[in-house]
């Protein structure tokens, strides 16, 4: 396995256009980096923090929860099992590294935080364009001093990161359940706020809750299309105002395979078997779902995928409001903001301890304009913790109002 097999060449890539435009302008230099997302059980988050501090990387953390199926025998000695959903709190670390070092950082982090043990977490890398004060410069030499073993790791290629933004309270749980039942992955649920519709209304806006539930799924790329369609159908996302789904490509990643906890009937769980075959086959291509293909033909969805681009901004609360408004002016709606905490590598004072991350799925044709207005209003030159990430999102399913 190698890191060369990254994002497939796209016929049209909005982020590439952004890169060309901004390079031509020459005011802000985009950095081509890899963003690593590490979703880890809260009990183990200190280890990741320590690791990142050692190699001198500023990461942003967000809290969330992963949902698993919990299987236990029925009480009172009744036959059969009970299936429940069980949530465990997790911490999501997001940080960027130079593309060439992303593979080794992921490998080292898996070893150090013992992510190879199922149930502990997921980690993956995405290539993207970053605007920030300084490009990331990790001190990779420090990794050698850390205490870690060597395992035979199954790092997978051809993954897709599917993000479902849902407006109805409780629908996150429902979608997570569907994903678990399909055996897709361990769903991650985070919370955010989306004020776009509310801001356009008068006082009647109080009837629309600003809270959004965001379900994050990592799945084999070849299945993503059909699974997204299933989720759209089950979550009725083809109805306006219920939410939207988009997918972004993953270069490579290591996935938590522990979908179920509790009683286990056989010597190896089905997840362990899948993980073993993944390792043998060095990929997930063999797992092409048959049922999904049938579903795909069956579902006569009213929404078609759009070519989009995910733009995520990190800044403080007030700046985010300015930036969001600027985005709205050029027609980019659907921003979801969530609270993140920067994990600084050194004791830096006068840095805000709470930041906001706002993610927007922007249609490809206006990506350039959005990035332009963002850069016009941004403070990345002043604030070391501010970021703008631009990432292709080849399939977004958004039903507009």
């Amino acid at each position, binding site marked *: 396995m190698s890191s060369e097999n990254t994002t497939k060449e796209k016929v049209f890539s909005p982020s590439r256009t952004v890169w060309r435009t901004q390079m031509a302008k020459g005011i802000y230099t985009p950095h081509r980096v890899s963003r690593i997302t590490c979703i880890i*059980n*809260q*009990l*183990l988050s200190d280890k990741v*923090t320590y690791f990142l501090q050692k190699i001198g990387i500023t990461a942003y*953390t967000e*809290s*969330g*929860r992963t949902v*698993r199926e919990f299987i236990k025998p029925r009480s009172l000695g009744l036959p059969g099992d009970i299936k429940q959903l*069980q*949530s*465990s*709190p997790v911490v999501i670390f997001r940080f960027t590294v130079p593309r060439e070092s992303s593979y080794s950082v992921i490998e080292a982090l898996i070893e150090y935080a013992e992510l190879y*043990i*199922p*149930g*502990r977490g997921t980690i993956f890398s995405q290539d993207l364009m970053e605007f920030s004060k300084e490009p990331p410069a990790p001190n990779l030499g420090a990794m050698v001093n850390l205490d870690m073993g060597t395992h035979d790791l199954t790092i997978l290629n051809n993954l897709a990161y599917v993000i479902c933004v849902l407006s109805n309270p409780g629908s*996150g749980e429902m979608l997570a359940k569907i994903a678990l039942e399909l055996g897709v992955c361990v769903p991650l*649920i*985070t*919370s955010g706020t989306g004020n776009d519709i509310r*801001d*356009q*209304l*008068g*006082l*009647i*806006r*109080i*009837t*629309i809750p600003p809270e959004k*539930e965001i379900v994050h799924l990592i799945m084999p790329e070849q299945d993503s299309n059909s699974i997204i369609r299933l989720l759209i159908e089950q979550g009725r996302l083809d109805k306006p105002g219920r939410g939207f789904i988009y997918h972004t490509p993953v270069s490579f990643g290591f996935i938590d395979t*522990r979908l179920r*906890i509790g009683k286990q009937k056989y010597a190896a769980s089905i997840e362990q078997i899948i993980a073993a075959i993944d390792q043998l086959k060095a990929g997930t291509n063999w797992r092409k779902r048959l049922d999904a293909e049938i579903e795909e033909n069956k579902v006569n969805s009213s929404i078609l995928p759009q070519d989009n681009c995910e733009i995520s901004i990190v800044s403080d*609360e007030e700046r985010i*409001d300015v930036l969001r*408004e600027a985005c*709205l002016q050029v027609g980019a709606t659907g921003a979801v903001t969530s*609270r993140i*905490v920067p*994990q600084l590598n050194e004791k830096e004072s006068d840095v*805000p*301890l*709470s930041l906001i991350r706002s993610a927007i799925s922007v249609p490809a044709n206006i990506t350039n304009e959005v990035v332009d207005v963002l850069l016009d209003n941004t403070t990345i030159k002043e604030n070391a913790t501010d970021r703008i990430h631009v990432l292709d999102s080849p399939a977004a399913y958004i039903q507009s109002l």
Partner: protein
Amino acid sequence: MIKRKSVPFLDAINMLLAYARVRILEQIKSVAFIIIYLVVFQTLILGVPLANALGTAGGIALVVFGLAFFLEGLILGLMPLGERVGVKLPTKVGISIIAGFGLILGFGATLAEPAISALKTAGATVTAWDSPLLFMLLNRYAEWLVLSVGIGVGVAVALGMFKFYYNFSIKILIFTIIPLILILSIIASLNDNLTKIIGLAWDCGAVTTGAVTVPLVLALGIGVSRASSQGKGSSGGFGIILLASAFPVLAVLILGFTLNIKAPNPTSETEFFSTANREQAKHVFGDVEKLQTHAYTLGSENARKAFYGSIEEYESAIKSLANNPENNKSILGGLSLSTWLVQKASDNERNLLSDVNLSDTPAPIAASSFKETLKVETISGIRAVIPLSILLVLVLILLREKLKYKDEIVLGIVFTLIGMTLLTSGIKLGLASLGGEVGAQLPRAFAKEEKFVDRVVINNFDTSLVYKGIATDGTQKSFFNILEEGKPKPIEFKADRLDKANNRYEHIITQPPLFKSKLTVLGLILVLVFAFGMGYGATMAEPALNALGITVEGLTVGAIKRAQIVQVVSIGVGIGIVLGFSRILFDLPLIWLIVPSYILLIPLTILSEEEFTAIAWDSGGVTTGPVTVPLVLAMGLSIGGVLSISDGFGVLALASAFPIITVLLFGLIARAKQRKSISNNLKDDANE
């Protein structure tokens, strides 16, 4: 500016209806348990039909709407406002100003939501001779009590601001303050006078954190800790409620210790009212008139005899009651003469006043009218909500901060106000009367004797109507028939109730005990089971607890559900109330119950993680709010009254201690489960 979209009228109505439906259904769910429970208990177990069912139902409807408005108002208005102030303060001013603001806020909040009335209710049966110090605190020095509680809360909020600003561990605070107040309580328990105020002190801690203060302070704490907490792992705004419950205890104990220097010691009733003791007694009351009223309202015949010194003076004073109706109001403390004669006077005194016609006994004071209650509650609602909101807005203006959704926040504050008014009036009109009815019936469950219900005087009693009945063993009893709605009902005739001179018969209507007199253990269990269910049900409807639950759910991204927290806390309150009532029933010293429960908390707190510790200790403070307090007090008083226990304090204190235990246990179990899911894997790994 962003273009405003207008929503068509019909759509807007539909949106509003859907919005209201969800919220009202939610509140119906949260009060359903307690209401069904009370009704079932009263009609099926105690076998008493509902009195004023229509009024009660109306009151309950008000409670549901009140809760929905109140909670939504908090979410829209006060909580975002508090959070905004919390976020902005640390960026603009130093910690000393923040702490000063906290002090004012805490102090102001206590004065705005005076819980002292609830405490006065709990102490309505406190007598000055048994517990002079407690009596002083509740009456002559009631303002001092409120002020010291206010100072306690103010200091607590200020200290809380320090905690968030410097992010020091909540455990340090717990392990310094809690042992301090425990030790003070133990010292107090050694003194005859001070031991009586322990219950009051701990109840002050439990009651003061009101339904408006809690969410506001929580939101403020979240804001401050977000903007200033250095390093990671902040407990996200939790911990102030704990302080705001602990410091008033400390403040009241200190006030008690101070006043105790001059306070007279508990004595016998006769000695207390005797003329020789007048100087001491005056110290308790301030003036003689109040002492006199006390002798008439809570004292017995002995008290009044001792008060007047000589028998002649006493008798003339009693007789003058009939002649000077104008004076009676002040002497009898608001009771009418006939009520006083029926309820308080001794037989001897009744004889002295035998010419007063008893049959015109006024009906028990009618429940205050709907309009009147609504008016009173609106005023107290305005007091509770408006000053605090103005304070917050003023701070934002001083900081030159602009609010983003001004209309929304104003609407939220209005909702809070409407909600508060509807909720408290609904409780007064519906829930409390329902609770009071059940509470009044409950003592029958463990009573050995028949319960006195009413006294009827039959004029022109004709003894020729009396006939005899015989039992299988040959004993004979006399009876007469009384007409009830035109139908005869046999009543046992007792010769000593017949006033031959006036041809009057005094018929005393009683209710038999629920169980036969030997089954009092079963009765006690029934009372305790009822107490558990009532504590559990009332807490589920507590708005401040729901606000805390929403905050916890948000901070943990749903890993801990609001419903879970509410359940766990409610179970804790149920257990606490059971223990509190056992204290009243068996007359246990409160300190025996408080000290062990807090000692149990020490290992639990050490084992728990920081975040959960703060949440758990805070949930102790939020439990006793506008729904629980009136219900618990109504029940505690009626039971205490039957057993002639001096006060109903301590129940609320225990009701705040036990949720801490249950929430900590819940957190430990949840964490153990999590660890298990990881360690299982480690084993698998080792086996490979």
